[in-house]
């Protein structure tokens, strides 16, 4: 700690801080454009000039490290004049198109010119401003490069965080331009973040360009469910529509970034929505009342034997509806509950998988991933399955020279990663030189992917082999957990916590053909896994693949329309908040199940949200403590003991099929993204690399 004086007031700041941070600690706001806490310092906008005693000229506070006893002055005539001067230079070239700029109302340049700029203009001629050609960065980011003030935040973000090194600057001085030099899209799943970072309206969102003004929006703080990371988001709505989704800060989870799917898939919430209960008549669906639909479902459930009833939960199922569905099925003495991750064959879990939280959680935590110095991925592409966690791995790559290896099909990550083939034998063997590095590492990580669960025996083998390998990592820091499981669906961790997905593979193999199937937002069940004569109920928000199989369709709420609980992949319990009401006759998911329990004559013992949440804590105590990530030492010790006994052999590994990756197209993974036009465009442009056609360019405007 060093002591510095800001406007005469003493503050203690950590050594190596910048003067701007000292000012912030002292409660003095310094205007800035290029400086950003999470990016490298560029020091090129000069907006943050302050006076430092005994310095001959004003200095850029973001690029000035503090020195003991430094006296910073932020409120002198010289500083005011300097700010006005910088502002004047920036505005001399900035177009006056605020009325048609999407960033209007949220623009740093607007705000800071009001506060720190001069109160009159010296400019008289309407011509002579800088003109820069717009760039085509793909279907997500719209450019209006005349507005760019060359702060290079976007360039630094793309290079440091997103690892998309094609974005850069060309030229210098007045001719400096931001772009990809050759015409190229910004191929990263994190590209949308440059929109928030850009202090002006040079980079805005293409999909919803010109559709709102910032001050018309109602803001609701919520949590994302497009993957199992649980990024903090803000849902902005106008009337009955979601207009925009942007990140909130949560240092423990997403810092202040979100993936493009999180940000842009919401237009899928406006298409193919289920708005009324539907009943199948022949080959069409007929709208009906809730009474008729629930009555029919209850009758069908009653007609089946306990063993013949199964339920499958999809990627967006919240904890409240999972526990209600489980309690309801248990009341009927039915135990066969599955998670869509096991789809399409509904094969069940490895025995004991759901017993120990350490088995299915990302034990090292998201923040912890940043410290890793050797990481082995098994059957997972973190870039597609948890883009935000992948940014932490990239940080580890940049800052601790972390080595990466993967047992998976070939994949492209935004850091170096050695491919060890796609056979689990590589894991059991542990012969590759990389394993030496892993064993010597202080913070080794073995990351098992959720795709492994499609084959319970493979998942079990991988888990045991991972523990065996972790045991040989003798150099690991005390308290560090090397074995990690990466979930990719928002519902997964909660489903395991609640014992929802606890049917073992052995038990699942013995069950008779299903007669009554309850799909809670599950769309990926192969029709072949469901007998033709089974009665299928689909409860969910979208008329997607699952609803097409159904006899009765019950319309549920999407994640922007309910207050519900989710557990992220590291076991953090978080709550999403309703920004809107569900469309027409659609209802909260747990309430639908509660109503169904009445119709079935087996009423659930809770009738309020508080009641369900109390029940959640009764089933798994972690639900009582929202927003914490808790270690599971006992479970971990037991998991290691069980694995040690199992002795995974190389011969067994050889007999297992090759590891595959569950996500082949990051942009189209679930009912919401499949119904999103923006995601479809991204899939074309990024996954399939098809250039935007004239037709699409037309509809995009």
């Amino acid at each position, binding site marked *: 700690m060093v002591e510095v004086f800001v406007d005469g007031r003493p503050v203690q700041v950590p050594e190596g801080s910048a003067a701007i941070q000292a000012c912030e600690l002292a409660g003095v706001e310094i205007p800035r454009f290029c400086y950003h806490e999470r990016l490298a310092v560029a020091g090129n906008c000069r907006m943050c000039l302050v006076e430092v005693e005994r310095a001959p000229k004003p200095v850029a506070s973001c690029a000035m490290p503090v020195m003991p006893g430094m006296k910073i002055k932020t409120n002198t005539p010289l500083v005011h004049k300097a700010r006005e001067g910088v502002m004047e230079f920036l505005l001399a070239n900035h177009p006056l198109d605020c009325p048609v700029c999407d960033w209007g109302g949220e623009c740093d340049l607007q705000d800071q010119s009001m506060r720190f700029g001069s109160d009159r203009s010296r400019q008289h001629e309407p011509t002579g401003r800088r003109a820069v050609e717009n760039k085509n960065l793909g279907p997500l980011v719209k450019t209006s490069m005349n507005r760019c003030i060359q702060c290079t935040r976007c360039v630094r973000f793309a290079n440091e965080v997103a690892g998309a090194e094609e974005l850069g600057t060309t030229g210098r001085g007045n001719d400096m331009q931001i772009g990809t030099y050759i015409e190229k899209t910004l191929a990263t799943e994190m590209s949308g973040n440059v929109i928030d970072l850009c202090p002006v309206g040079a980079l805005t969102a293409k999909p919803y360009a010109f559709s709102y003004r910032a001050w018309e929006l109602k803001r609701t703080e919520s949590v994302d469910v497009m993957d199992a990371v649980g990024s903090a988001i803000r849902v902005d709505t106008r009337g009955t529509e979601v207009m925009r989704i942007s990140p909130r800060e949560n240092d423990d989870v997403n810092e202040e970034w979100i993936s493009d799917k999180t940000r842009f898939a919401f237009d899928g919430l406006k298409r193919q929505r289920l708005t009324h209960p539907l009943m199948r008549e022949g080959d069409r669906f007929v709208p009906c009342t809730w009474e008729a639909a629930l009555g029919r479902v209850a009758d069908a459930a009653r007609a089946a034997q306990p063993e013949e009833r199964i339920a499958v939960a999809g990627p967006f199922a919240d904890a409240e509806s999972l526990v209600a569905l489980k309690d309801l099925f248990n009341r009927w003495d039915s135990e066969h509950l599955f998670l869509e991750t096991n789809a399409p064959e509904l094969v069940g879990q490895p025995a004991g998988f759901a017993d120990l939280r350490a088995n299915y959680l990302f034990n090292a935590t998201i923040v912890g991933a940043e410290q890793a110095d050797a990481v082995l991925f098994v059957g997972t592409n973190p870039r597609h399955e948890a883009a935000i966690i992948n940014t932490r791995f990239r940080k580890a790559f940049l800052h601790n020279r972390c080595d990466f290896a993967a047992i998976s099909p070939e994949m492209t990550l935004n850091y170096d990663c050695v491919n060890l083939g796609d056979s689990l034998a590589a894991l059991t063997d542990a012969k590759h030189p990389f394993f030496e590095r892993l064993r010597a590492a202080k913070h080794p990580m073995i990351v098992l992917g959720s795709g492994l669960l499609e084959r319970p025996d493979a998942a079990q083998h991988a888990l045991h082999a991972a523990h065996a390998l972790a045991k040989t990592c003798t150099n690991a820091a005390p308290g560090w957990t090397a074995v990690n499981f990466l979930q990719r669906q928002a519902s997964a961790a909660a489903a395991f916590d609640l014992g929802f997905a606890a049917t073992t593979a052995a038990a699942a193999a013995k069950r008779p053909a299903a007669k009554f199937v309850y799909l809670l937002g599950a769309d990926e069940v192969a029709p072949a896994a469901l007998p033709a004569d089974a009665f299928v109920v689909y409860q969910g928000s979208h008329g997607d693949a699952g609803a097409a199989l159904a006899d009765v369709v019950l319309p549920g709420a999407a994640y922007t329309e309910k207050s519900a609980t989710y557990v992220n992949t590291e076991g953090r319990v978080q709550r999403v908040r309703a920004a809107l009401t569900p469309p027409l006759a659609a209802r909260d998911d747990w309430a639908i199940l509660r109503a169904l329990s009445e119709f079935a004559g087996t009423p659930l013992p809770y009738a309020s949200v508080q009641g369900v949440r109390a029940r959640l804590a009764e089933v798994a105590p*972690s639900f009582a403590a929202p927003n914490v990530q808790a270690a599971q030492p006992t479970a971990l010790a037991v998991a290691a003991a069980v694995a040690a006994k199992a002795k995974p052999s190389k011969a067994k590994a050889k007999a297992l099929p090759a590891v595959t990756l569950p996500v082949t197209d990051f942009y189209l993974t679930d009912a919401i993204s499949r119904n999103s036009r923006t995601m479809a465009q991204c899939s074309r442009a990024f996954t399939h690399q098809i250039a935007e056609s004239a037709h699409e360019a037309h509809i995009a405007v």
Partner: protein
Amino acid sequence: MSWKGAVSQTLRELRLHMCQTGPGSAGLRAFVQTEYPALKAQYPDLPVLVREAAGVEARAYGRFAHGREQRLTLEGLSQQDVAAKLKQLVASSA
């Protein structure tokens, strides 16, 4: 301890709640560490949900057929007492 035949036909799920560090959960923690593998080996299909959360009371829930549940408080008990009480719970038929 042998778990052969110890679990009743109607037991569907066993849930064990404990604190990671609290002294009141020490007995249950020790029980889980020593007995879980044996119990699991005998009943691989029975979910035994071990759930740790800071500050919770050591407890066990048995869920039996038709969703009937029994709750047991194990706070402050020794490993032997935990084992005895749990044996009783899993052997009962709700």
